[in-house]
């Protein structure tokens, strides 16, 4: 028995990953939170995981297919 291997693009890999079961990590969260220092400067900005980032994560997770 031989093992079938093929290369997939990151885009295709992301689609394959998203085709999996629903789980908690699939819940998408977007938003913005900011930490502002006492002088009014933005000290840290929290960009909550976007759909695009979730797709990128999915692609990275299966890029070794």
């Amino acid at each position, binding site marked *: 028995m031989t093992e079938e291997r093929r290369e997939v693009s990151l885009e295709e890999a992301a689609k394959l990953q998203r085709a999996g079961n*629903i789980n908690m990590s699939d819940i*998408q969260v*977007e938003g913005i*939170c*900011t*930490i*502002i220092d006492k002088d009014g400067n933005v000290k840290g900005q*929290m960009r*909550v*995981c976007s759909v695009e980032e979730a797709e990128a994560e999915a692609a990275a997770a299966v890029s070794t297919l």
Partner: protein
Amino acid sequence: MQLVDALRTTLAAAIVTDLGATAFARWYTTGLTTLLASAACSNPAFIAGAAGVTDLDVTPVVEDTSPAAAGTCVRLTFYLNNTDANTLWRLQLGVATSGAPDITMSNNVIATTDTVQLSSLSITVPAGIPDVT
């Protein structure tokens, strides 16, 4: 598994209902050990939309202008109220400056002189698809 949009919306609405009228956003250190900052949410905290989407009501903005403690934030949570009890949290989001957390932040160290502000937050219940693999 795939969910029909109406059910996704029902699940999103359940988040709104479950958080109730007195929800708080609370920022914590690792393991919910130290409460760094907290902010009262609107009543209700989230506004349910279509297709499984629910948005945090940020009018007025959800913010803490005088954090209770200084430290590194690794959790953004939503509690039923501002009581520090482990049974009261409903949502937890991981915070980090790198990797693939729920929330990526350029700087997640909070000082007591800082203002911590949530200006938008949207949660989407996924649709999924039937999986036969």
